[in-house]
């Protein structure tokens, strides 16, 4: 079995590279908490490339308008049809922001309208247990962006699986630090990222 490679999707319209340390941080967490064979560095793959179909989980983030080209839209659909999962995080943590508005529009156009994911979903207990649903981020609690603590993540389901996971909680800011700095945290805030990866790989 090949190693899991954390994939950051490169889309054409916005700043897809706004959280460059997130992949390394989540890779570190996967190694730190699980026995999953993981590559030591992530891959950056254009969403318009067929190479994206080789990855079971694709991470997308940004602040700017989020729009797919036709090739990106086609590959995103194919990825989901093949059992892949796309995790989209609003780096603006602002439901009135341009990323959120355009991303919701694009997800609805490409797949379907995302729905609130119940906070007792398997995603929240497939590795670490999060009894209250998605963990809050410091950006939410500090009143950045829309000054809201978002109670739910959104998802587009493919059968009984999550195909598109959408977050307005700005995990991209929360997890965008060098993994060596993790030792300064009392509680590792990337544990939920482990759940996302474990879910994508095993469900």
């Amino acid at each position, binding site marked *: *079995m090949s190693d899991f490679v954390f994939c950051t999707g490169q889309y*054409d319209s916005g700043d897809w590279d706004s959280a460059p340390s997130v992949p390394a941080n989540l890779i570190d967490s996967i190694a730190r908490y699980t026995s999953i064979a993981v590559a030591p*560095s992530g891959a950056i793959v254009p969403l318009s490339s067929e190479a994206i179909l080789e990855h079971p989980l694709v991470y997308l983030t940004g602040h700017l*308008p989020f729009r797919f080209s036709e090739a990106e839209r086609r590959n995103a659909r194919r990825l989901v049809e093949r059992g892949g999962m796309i995790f989209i995080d609003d780096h603006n943590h602002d439901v009135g922001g341009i990323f959120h508005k355009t991303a919701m529009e694009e997800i609805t156009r490409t797949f379907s309208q995302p729905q609130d994911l119940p906070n007792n979903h398997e995603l929240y207990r497939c590795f670490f*247990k999060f009894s209250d649903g998605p963990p809050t981020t410091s950006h939410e609690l500090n009143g*950045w962006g829309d000054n809201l603590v978002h109670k739910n993540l959104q998802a587009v389901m493919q059968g009984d699986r999550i195909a598109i996971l959408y977050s307005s909680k700005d995990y991209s800011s929360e997890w965008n630090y060098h993994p060596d700095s993790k030792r300064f945290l009392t509680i590792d805030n990337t544990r939920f990222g482990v759940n996302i990866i474990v879910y994508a790989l095993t469900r």
Partner: protein
Amino acid sequence: MTAIGTPGRARGVTSLERVRRTQRILGAAAVTRALAWGFAVALGILAAVSFASLVIPRLRSDTALHEIFAVVIGVAVAGVLIWRSRHFVSTNRVALWIEERIPELHYSLVTAVEQRESPFVEGMETTIARQDVGGVTFRALRRGLVAAGAAFVAAVLILYVSPSEAFGRPGALSRLGRFESAPSIPIGSRLEDIEVRVTPPAYAGGRTITLDDPSSVAGLTGSIIAIRGRGSVAGLTASVTGPLRITGDDGRWAISLVMPAKPAALTLKDRNYERVVVLDPRADAPPKVALTSPVRDTALRVPRLVVQLNVTASDDVGLVAGHFEYLISTGSGEIFKARTINTPVVRFGGSRTGSMSATLDLASLNLQGGDVISMRAIVQDGNTLSGPGIATSDTRTIRIARAGEYDSLSINAAAPQPLDTTAVSQRMLIAMTEQLVRDQPKISRDELVKRSTEIGDLEDRIRIRVQEILEGEAHAHEEAQPGDPPPTLEEEEPADGERDPQHPDLRVAYNALWDAVRSLKIAEPAPALPPMRVALAALDRARLANRLYLRGTPPKIIVDLERVRLKGEAKGSSSTRTPRSFADSARVRLSARFNAALDLIEKQPARAMTELALIRVEALTLLPEFATALGEATDAVRAGLDATLPLLRARRALGGAPKATPGLPLWSGGGG
């Protein structure tokens, strides 16, 4: 048979022969009666199920089970009846049976059969010969045989008038191999030879088309479908998602419905006949929009540019309107705002192709550094029924560079590196050395040595600082304590590739600084200047390399997996994995239904056709190629043609072309 009961010929027939003849007759009668009752019961059961299916429709779904049940019961009844007649295998029992029906024999027949050597046999034979044994036997068996025959005939008649598909049509009895007939579609109902008129929605401006007896109807969503057939309306039903109203006049019936948005099956029923017509809606395609100018994204140093935007658009029905949308994102870090500007709407007047253009003067938008303008075209068609269909072009972006930012580079606001102070010092030392070179003709040798040595010491401190960065402070202190003579270049020169390969510029600077220090320490400032400038340039490059990264190539962090593996304090618990569903379960499901329908096609073609039509309805959305091939196959069957080839094409389309595609080779699903 007449010989048995004819006294004139009885003289040559012994009593034992009479008994054995009667025994054969009784045996044949018993078998005949058992078979007749067995068939009557089996056919009666089939007829009863057939009638019951009118009330309980699900009984029609598994006729094979009913047939097996009927055969088993029929065989059981026949077996029981034969078993009850088992006593006739004994001649004594047969003789007693005859004695029972002819008391005048006074047991002479039994005695004659059992005591064939008795001296009284002659007298007994004479007595027996006077009796009509054969006639008595036939009279005794008549009632039972007539009853069995009547039951059989009645069962056949009941089955004939039942809704069963027996007699002339392949169905229940054909499975028994007794009423085999050529497969064909039921004919003669009012559902044959229908006429379908499809009128497209008004916005499409298309003509009404007429279809003769189609198995499927294709048309734009919202089209009016009018169906007419021969015969009265009584007893006809029609339904799609719900029942439809059927009107009738002048000996014809008619249905009118609207083409739904999704494929559906129109089910027509005439008494026991059923026909499914596939409704194949064609969605109005949204327009196609291509932004031909500008052709690529760009970044500008200053927001002074007039952008020419050009778009070409096309639509299958007709374009109505279009405009450009400019979305301007302002902000940095975590704070972004956006505003949207729409250009005036351009009218296309319903033409199928069109173009529009606009000019955007960036100077008029009051843009600041870091702003991003996203431009796209939005076009809508004339679909007033389910639309309008809206299409957008690809987005082009123009970014205004921030102050001090290089073109096409994204600045990462990193903290200043320690190298910065070093670089400033190096620039100062170059200035001091240039001044010393200018002063050199005017000053004494001692003054020259003193000032050059001072500059050399400062330069050496820079060298040590660079060395600290390259190899670490501790190592640097060991290598060069204050007051020690500087090590030779050869001593410090590492083998290629041994020094940190991530800092080639620092290494260049380090070596150049060595050259400069050596010249300065021997009071030769002029030769020191070239390596000092090389060192400054290299330090500058290193500083920039540490602070900037190209957009699209963020710094790569390699995680030391061995160091951190399972070192986390928190412990997770992986729950039981549930198997993933197959990615293409729709194809598997359709394949199973397709195979089941093919199994029916010889024995129950009407039902098979209905099932194939329903499969096609589902396939129109999921597997259009399969749906097309299936449509050809059902058309061939309806026309009485050989459907083998279309069915083969359908099966190939359903199986999909074998091909190697990149996918999720090892992490993908298909089971735990």
